[in-house]
């Protein structure tokens, strides 16, 4: 069993009356609610948390891409992954992922993922989401009717660029390139493992099954509601005679550990409320642009993650309901162990994406929950699915080739100018270099 510590990087300081006063946390959320000085603190806190998870033995560190969104402050997850590549050593970098239809040309993704794979010594997992309707259609202006076609074309270009060893021309409908010649190329051959985050589009099951990609269901509804989608995936795998390897499936779940069940409620209840009632407050008109979901998916009756239907399901839910309905797995280490084992078995999931910082949760609680999980839950669950081989995790460089960053020492080694304004750091280091 593998565990990825997954960060959404929410803005923790939305006002109390956010839901009543504003229509959406996403797309048209007022800019005046964002304070970059608090943002500075949050990014640094959040990177600390991911780095801590690396030390605590989690298998992966997860980041993802959202735009104009107060619960996901990573328009570019690659920037976060780049920072983590230098400051972590053990865990894989699970970039879940880049919404490849949005990059123009999409070869940019092949390049940046190659850079991340090389910097991190072959620790990258490459996620290719279609992206949400809010991100793709409303924030980035992609035409709903052609989004999926563009996505598939971008996928073909990126994977071909990774695999080909010679220059080739690419004559797509959306991208035309005379010289595709990836430089640098990823360490992992033929390319990093590809995970496809999905929200329940039926086409995604087929796409994963046909390419032997890992399917990651990123849900905020928890494992009980998520079972319908997981079953749909396994049904497609069975129908196509593919191995039912649990590692080919990832699932996102909110998990929070405390000393006791009672203490967990005290610790986390308010923060869950912040997440479900402020962070997921999305205007229904943005939830699902016409044409974003195919008619086939709509007919399959798979509910969206956000919007009125989703809000209706959460209406009036309290801590006890969140726990009972499986939105949240929380409690003492024993409670979490038991429920999580049931959940993973019921979903047949080998890669758990753990949402351990949620909503307004402050750093000290995140640390406590993470540490308790790592010490008292994770070790007991490692043997689950041990009869299966995990073919969707990176193959990193051997230890003797693995580079370590120089120890960090932020002290200035040359004095700053004493007559007033300090000189730009670049100038200082340039002088320091030429002095050598």
């Amino acid at each position, binding site marked *: 069993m593998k565990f990825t510590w997954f960060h959404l990087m929410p803005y923790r300081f939305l006002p109390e009356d956010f839901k009543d006063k504003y229509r959406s946390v996403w797309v048209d959320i007022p800019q005046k609610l964002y304070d970059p000085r608090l943002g500075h603190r949050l990014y640094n806190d959040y990177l600390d948390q991911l780095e801590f998870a690396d030390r605590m033995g989690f298998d992966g560190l997860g980041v993802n891409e959202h735009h104009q969104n107060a619960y996901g402050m990573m328009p570019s997850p690659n920037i976060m992954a780049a920072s983590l590549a230098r400051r972590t050593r053990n865990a894989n970098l699970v970039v879940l992922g880049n919404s490849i239809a949005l990059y123009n040309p999409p070869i940019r993704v092949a390049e940046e993922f190659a850079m991340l794979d090389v910097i991190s010594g072959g620790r990258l997992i490459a996620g290719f989401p279609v992206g949400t309707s809010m991100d793709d*259609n*409303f924030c980035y*202006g992609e*035409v*709903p*009717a*052609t989004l999926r076609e563009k996505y598939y074309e971008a996928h073909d270009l990126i994977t071909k660029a990774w695999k080909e060893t010679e220059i080739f021309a690419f004559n797509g*409908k959306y991208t035309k390139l005379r010289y595709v010649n990836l430089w640098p190329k990823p360490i992992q051959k033929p390319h990093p493992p590809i995970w496809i985050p999905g929200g329940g589009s039926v086409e995604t099951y087929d796409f994963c099954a046909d390419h032997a990609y890992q399917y990651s269901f990123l849900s905020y509804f928890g494992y009980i509601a998520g079972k319908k989608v997981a079953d749909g995936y396994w049904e497609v795998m069975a129908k196509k005679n593919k191995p039912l390897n649990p590692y080919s499936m990832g699932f996102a779940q909110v998990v929070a550990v405390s000393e006791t069940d009672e203490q967990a409620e005290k610790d986390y209840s308010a923060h869950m409320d912040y997440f479900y009632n402020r962070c997921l407050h999305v*205007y*229904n*008109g*943005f939830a699902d*642009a*016409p*044409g974003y*979901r195919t*008619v086939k998916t*709509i*007919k399959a009756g798979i509910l969206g993650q956000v919007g009125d239907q989703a809000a209706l399901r959460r209406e009036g839910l309290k801590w006890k309901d969140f726990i009972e309905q499986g939105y949240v797995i929380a409690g003492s280490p024993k409670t979490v162990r038991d429920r999580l084992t049931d959940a993973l078995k019921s979903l047949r999931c080998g890669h758990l994406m753990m949402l351990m910082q949620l909503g307004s949760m402050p750093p000290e609680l995140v640390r406590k929950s993470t540490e308790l999980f790592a010490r008292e839950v994770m070790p007991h669950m490692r043997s689950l699915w041990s009869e299966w081989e995990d073919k969707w995790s990176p193959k990193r460089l051997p230890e003797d080739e693995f580079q370590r960053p120089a120890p960090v020492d932020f002290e200035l080694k040359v004095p700053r100018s004493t007559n007033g304004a300090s000189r730009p750091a670049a100038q200082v280091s340039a002088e320091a270099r030429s002095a050598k």
Partner: protein
Amino acid sequence: MNTTQTLANGKFSVEMQVYGSGEPLFFLHGAAGLSGFETFLEELGRDFKVYAPHFPGFGESTGNEHIDDVIDAALFYHELMDSLGIASANFVGHSMGGMFASEIAALDNSRVKKLVLVGPAGFWLDAHPIPDIFAAQLTELAPLLFDDPNSQLAQAFTAIPSDMKALEVMYIERVKRFATASKFLWPLPDRGLKKRAYRIKSPTLVLWGASDKLIPPAYAKEFTSRIAGAREQLIKDAGHMLPFEQQAAFCKAVRDFCKG
């Protein structure tokens, strides 16, 4: 009368409503499609042979995958005329249909005898932003589209079925139509008509609902200033759904202009 026309060796199949007799007149619908409320088509049929095709992706018409942009769309209509043996016709284009009708003329004026643009899409003015119809909720549609959102017509047009099955059918139909329209209107309804409008030489009437809240009447100037000789006519007590809301005034304006 409902007919089906097959074009371009089966690339397109076109469901079309045909009325009356006389000079040919094409009515090109907007993003909402032909929804059964178009009683003005029959009225126009007293003076014209009216052709109202469903654009591929609407109704039973197919072949949308062969149309990527407005030029493809305009050429599709040229092909439709060829298959009907019509060299030149009057065109009445409403909203998105006005955008198509403009492009049809810009590509080849000989196909368009007279051009009537009714609250047409095709331009974007920062000073007059067009509301996001794609994000609008069903309950928000009537005030956006009609001069009188409480009228029987507006209510019927935007009614939400209480029966779940009917609601699903309606929802899927709306998704199909708007998804198709998104190729030409998303995220802003400007696909370069401003570069080509100078090519329109057909006599042109720009009709606008005086209280159009979707595409404000300010856009009429964009058309009249770019199309030589184009004339603007505002119809009062009408919103974006002008042909539906003021059927008599609409039909009279079309008749007077095309017959005149």
